């Protein structure tokens, strides 16, 4: 996936003029598509990731990304559209994990085991499909790490529609979902359908993965889901602001990632994850520094109250 970029590097150098740089970036159709698709994915991954992190379901998101591998490979074997395979497999796995790992409270060891088992099984299923379809190693890598530069116009439309659909559903369930994520028992007593929301969110997570797999790949969608959201939650404790921050970070990360990858030799996935990780470390360091600064006051207050 780096081949086109390295070839282009000789022709293109970033200009100090930002307008000029932007014009250069968007002068090729495949880059326009990459930016559009990346934007839609970030718009969905930001909010969904926020809830994923809040609910402590990072492992689940990671596993659903792997399920995407089986879905995409299966679709290739059957000769159908990868999006269909991704959606069907994602939904099945989400419901299966929910049924296997469900046990009253969330975050039990049992659900981790269910997630892990489904994860491994989907991986090997994906491998089987690839063997059956007799694809080459390159195809595996395409699924695992995406092909940012090969997005067609039709893909962009599909991604935009699915992202809009996901956002719409999320907007409808956002407040009860927040309630359930923070305080499941009281939410249940107040008549919020806890199980329905849990499954709805699993399906949303599967949808986000399905949307993103073609562009940034099975293994890296996870980076876009978890890291901006984790960073946002380090920076703010306000839910609405957190969702906005998470989405903005996802957007910044993917735009920067695409731009840097365009002008240098580095693959998009590496740039995206590294920038995201640096943001996370900075946010953590800031919080750690502020916590240290507050410490004397906190001790004094704690001592005063007790």
């Amino acid at each position, binding site marked *: 996936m780096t081949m086109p970029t390295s070839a282009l590097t000789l022709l293109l150098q970033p200009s100090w003029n930002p307008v000029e740089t932007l014009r250069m970036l968007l002068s090729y159709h495949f880059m326009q598509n990459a930016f559009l698709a990346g934007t839609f994915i970030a718009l969905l991954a930001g909010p969904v990731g926020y809830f994923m992190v809040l609910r402590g379901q990072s492992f689940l998101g990671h596993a659903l990304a792997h399920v995407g591998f089986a879905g995409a490979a299966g679709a290739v074997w059957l000769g159908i559209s990868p999006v269909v395979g991704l959606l069907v497999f994602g939904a099945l796995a989400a419901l299966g994990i929910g049924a296997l790992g469900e046990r009253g409270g969330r975050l039990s060891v049992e659900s981790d085991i269910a997630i892990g088992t489904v994860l491994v099984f989907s991986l*090997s*299923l994906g491998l*089987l499909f690839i063997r059956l379809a007799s694809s080459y190693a390159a195809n595996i890598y395409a699924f695992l790490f995406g092909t940012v530069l090969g997005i067609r116009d039709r893909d962009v439309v599909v991604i935009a529609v699915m992202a809009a659909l996901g956002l719409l559903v999320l907007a409808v369930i956002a407040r009860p979902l927040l309630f359930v994520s923070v305080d499941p028992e009281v939410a249940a007593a107040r008549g919020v359908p806890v199980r329905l929301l849990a499954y709805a969110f699993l399906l949303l997570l599967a949808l986000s993965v399905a949307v993103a797999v073609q562009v940034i790949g099975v293994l890296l969608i996870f980076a876009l889901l*978890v*890291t901006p959201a984790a960073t946002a939650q380090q920076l703010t404790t306000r839910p609405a602001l957190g969702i906005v921050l998470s989405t903005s970070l996802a957007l910044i990360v993917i735009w920067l990632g695409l731009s840097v990858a365009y002008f240098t030799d580095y693959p998009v996935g*590496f740039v995206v994850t*590294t920038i995201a990780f640096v943001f996370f470390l900075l946010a953590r360091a800031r919080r750690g520094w502020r916590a240290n600064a507050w410490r004397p006051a906190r001790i004094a207050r704690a001592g005063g109250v007790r």
Partner: protein
Amino acid sequence: MIEMWQYDFIRHAMLAGSALAIVAGLIGYFVVARRLIFTSDVLSHVAFPGALIAIILGVNPLLGVFGFALLTALGMGTLAGKTRANDVTTGTLLAWVLGIGVLFLSIYASGSSGANSSAGINVLFGSLFGIHAREAWVVAIVGLLTTIVLLSIARPLLFASLDPAVAASRGVPVRLLNIVFLILLAITIAEAVQAVGALLLFALLITPAAIARRLVARPFTGMFLSALLSLLFTWAGITLAYYFPYPVSFCLTALVFVAYVSVVVVQRVLRQRIYQRRARPAHAPA
């Protein structure tokens, strides 16, 4: 059954697979008890950049995997601070490790005259049937040594896993045991890379232990049951893969998956039956 034993590749697969299965089954019991499922998944993924950088640098891939897995384990410990490594830090680190994997892959791919070799794929998915005699013996011996170390620290490790605070107060070196355990886990993953692949090791690591914990409550019985189940899955998987045209890793994980789902479903049905049987006499007098 007997005819397959005349092939070298089956004998090597059986040797390496068995050694790995036993270690994974035993270590997996602790992984589950210590709730390190996500962590061990991350360490398995780390094998990918680890092996690639080793290939790029021209050293033994095992060394790269082991070093990377250990570094990541330490990184997670640092990021998590004093609290237990949590979901978010684990996930964030995992995301970055995968990104590094992509970088190494691109360096590797452009270095080897653009040919997309399957080395990376093998790291992730392994090739149990492609293993050579020497590699099989290395896996077996490393596996044996790991097992011996693990069994010798099993009791304090169990104590420290279940109740770290009390164990520490009783003089168990909890921190040291944590580190030793992570090293053992890293070794196991490095060892597994050649045989079943890093990602599929996970099937032997988590699920047999989970099934064993569902079936028995005694820790040592559970540990050995976990190793035994893991061994049986491996043997059955290899046999199936010999007779059917599917990859070993698929046969193995499919077996494990079916076994896990069956145990969960059967236990749920049984529990519901017992519940209903108990409920009936209580209703009768009323």
